[in-house]
């Protein structure tokens, strides 16, 4: 008898664990022919709230790490992704990609992680300033992560969109909760496994599968979320997100015009800066005697 294949159970990723949705609900991920690919978790509002708690809990540790350490961890994610290319290719092809497109998407995703790994300990230098104030003070401004970022990942791709929106957010020291592509969800769960084996602390990246039409409003109105990222062209959703965001003055980032396959427009340190705050610090300079810097 031929060996029976062991199928993978696709679960969600919260706080470094792989639970099923607390709701017990599921939806069917299908290919273009309508064949079943997997039963996906249909995540609930409660799953999202649990994920925000995990992300908030992880924020202090992740943002407090050395930028160099974050850089190494992002590089590690790329390494792990490289090692599991076959699995991603398989999933991409199942979800409708040609093998050439799948290859291209995986390469681009790995390279994008390497790109942002490199920025982790550099963007601060590019975007900081020592400000020449007119009084006797030392004054400087540095970027700091904004906090917990809720991301509705690009819906038209399974992997590259997901990677492109997660990488700049965590490179800058934020933690995030991400809703994967509803139609092409397979890679998101496998990418969660990659993250889980890359020394990314639990809670830094949380990945849910489910329906944006159900969850977008909760992503936008949660009072312990600092920023929302949205990548679709749906005007109703955009307006809804911006309205709900005002409840606690969330930062709203709309990436609806970005082609994630085009390197020139889909990666830059400005994506990192979108979820950064600028902190300015003042301290007096003692100037009691008449000493001058000479020579």
């Amino acid at each position, binding site marked *: 008898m031929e060996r029976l294949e062991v199928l993978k159970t696709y679960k969600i990723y919260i706080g470094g664990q792989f639970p099923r949705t607390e709701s017990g609900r599921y939806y069917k991920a299908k290919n273009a022919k309508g064949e079943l690919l997997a039963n996906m978790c249909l995540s609930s509002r409660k799953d999202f709230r649990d994920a925000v708690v995990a992300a908030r809990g992880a924020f202090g540790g992740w943002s407090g790490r050395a930028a160099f350490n974050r850089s190494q961890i992002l590089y590690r994610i790329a390494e792990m992704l490289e090692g599991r290319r076959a699995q991603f290719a398989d999933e991409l092809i199942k979800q409708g990609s040609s093998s050439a497109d799948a290859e291209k998407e995986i390469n681009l995703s790995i390279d994008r992680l390497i790109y942002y790994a490199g920025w982790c300990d550099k963007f601060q230098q*590019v975007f900081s*300033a020592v*400000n*020449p*104030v*007119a*009084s006797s*003070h030392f*004054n400087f*401004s540095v970027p*700091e992560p*904004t*906090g917990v970022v809720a991301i509705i990942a690009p819906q038209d791709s399974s992997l590259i969109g997901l990677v492109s929106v997660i990488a700049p957010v965590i490179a800058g020291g934020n933690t995030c909760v991400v809703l994967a592509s509803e139609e092409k969800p397979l890679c998101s769960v496998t990418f969660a496994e990659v993250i889980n084996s890359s020394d990314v602390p639990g809670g830094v990246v949380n990945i849910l599968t489910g329906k944006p039409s159900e969850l977008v409003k909760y992503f936008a109105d949660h009072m312990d979320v*600092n920023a929302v990222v949205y990548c679709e062209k749906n*005007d109703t959703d*955009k*307006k*809804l*997100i*911006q*309205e709900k*965001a*005002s*409840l*606690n*003055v969330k*930062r709203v980032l709309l990436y609806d015009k970005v082609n994630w396959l085009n390197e020139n427009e889909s990666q*830059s340190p*400005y994506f990192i800066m979108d979820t950064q*705050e*600028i*902190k*300015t*610090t*003042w*301290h*007096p300079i003692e100037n009691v005697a008449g000493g001058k810097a000479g020579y």
Partner: protein
Amino acid sequence: MAKAAKNNTSKLKFDTINYAPAPESKSSAKIEAQYDLFINGKFEKPSSKKYFDTINPATEEKLSSVADANAADVDKAVKAARTAYDKVWSKMPAKERAKYIYRIARMIQERAREFAVIETLDGGKPIRESRDIDVPLVANHFFYYAGWADKLEYAFPNRSPKSLGVAGQIIPWNFPLLMAAWKIAPALATGNTVVLKPAETTPLTALKLAEIIQESDLPPGVVNIITGAGATGAAIVNHPDINKIAFTGSTEVGKLIQRAVAGTDKKVTLELGGKAANIIFEDAPIDQAVEGIINGIYFNQGHVCCAGSRLFVQESVYKEVMRKLKDRIATLIVGDPMDKNTDVGAINSKQQLETIHKYINIGKKEGLEIFESSCALPKKGFFCRPTLFTNVAQSSRIAQEEIFGPVLAIQTFRTDDEVIEKANNTPFGLSAGVWTDKGSKIFNLTTKLRAGVIWANTYNKFDPTSPFGGYKESGFGREGGLHGLGAYLNV
């Protein structure tokens, strides 16, 4: 001997010392009986045909009446700004744009005394503050941003930033002219045109600025200044041909604005409320820290979004700090803002005085201990004694909500981690203060406090080169410095 050295400051007997009045002359302030709207380079009558009074909050006397712009007036101003943007300002070489802004800066310096006097008459802040802080910062802000106009590509690596178009700007009453400068200067330097609305209780210095703008020969329509209350502001926010909204004011109104622009392409920056922690460690230079506490909460009558309104004192020095703080409060001169001796001037409006009294009553009802200066208050005008509350809990409303007045909420702490936790436990995140002589402790605090501006061993310092703005519900976007440019550009 040792004891004497420890208590080397003795309480000044202020009840026996009287300062002779030192009033600033009002003669330099030329205030017209009535002001129209500054649209397209000219002062025009409002189509609403309505005017409202602006009064001196220190005397309750009417200073002038100003036009109440309605939606049609706003539309006229936006059209003027759009035409100026399309036809003149966006096409002008950047270095010429710079020279106009430099010229405005110089003309403000030339008329600095006049601006300071009118600012104090219209808003109630002490003349010493208008003269030495507000107006110099205003001129410097224009001068600083003027120089950026032809250097923008250096501020954004690998990008060619583009102006946005017409900026609608709504500013508050606590620093009327300074907020106008913070809004107008970067908007012009980055190549945008402006429709600005000052607050209804403090419109005069913005209208005087309109005179300067007229005299500077800035092309008509590049800056339009229109007066009115909330409805005028709403008409600006909702106008379909505005590309950018910049707002400074309360978190409550900021949220309404963020909601109102949802679904549009308007770029928004919000500089909103605060409830800043001012943290005194046992190793701080206590006398300087006490000055920092006073400056933090009683500067500008506490009408400061970044005011150090929550004081955290390490337990071991609590008694000493409280003794010195109360002694210092007793020396504050509260009264006529036009007197050069005055430390604390008039509350900006009757309405704001009522808000402050409401919170003082809430504090009393919550069972907190109140201490206030025993100074006499003028019979007319809106005044409030410098006040503090002790025995305050984290949950007290006066420790949670922005009061925007001279009311300080005091708590104690034991450890660094405890005070970081308490300081960050607020929806706001505009500013914070830290007082300690230990450098490594300063940086532990300044990196962990979630706020946009941190003053270490100082407080309430401002400079055109220094970015200002909040985390969390204190808003987003920065004003000042290189980082203030991004608010007015597509990068």
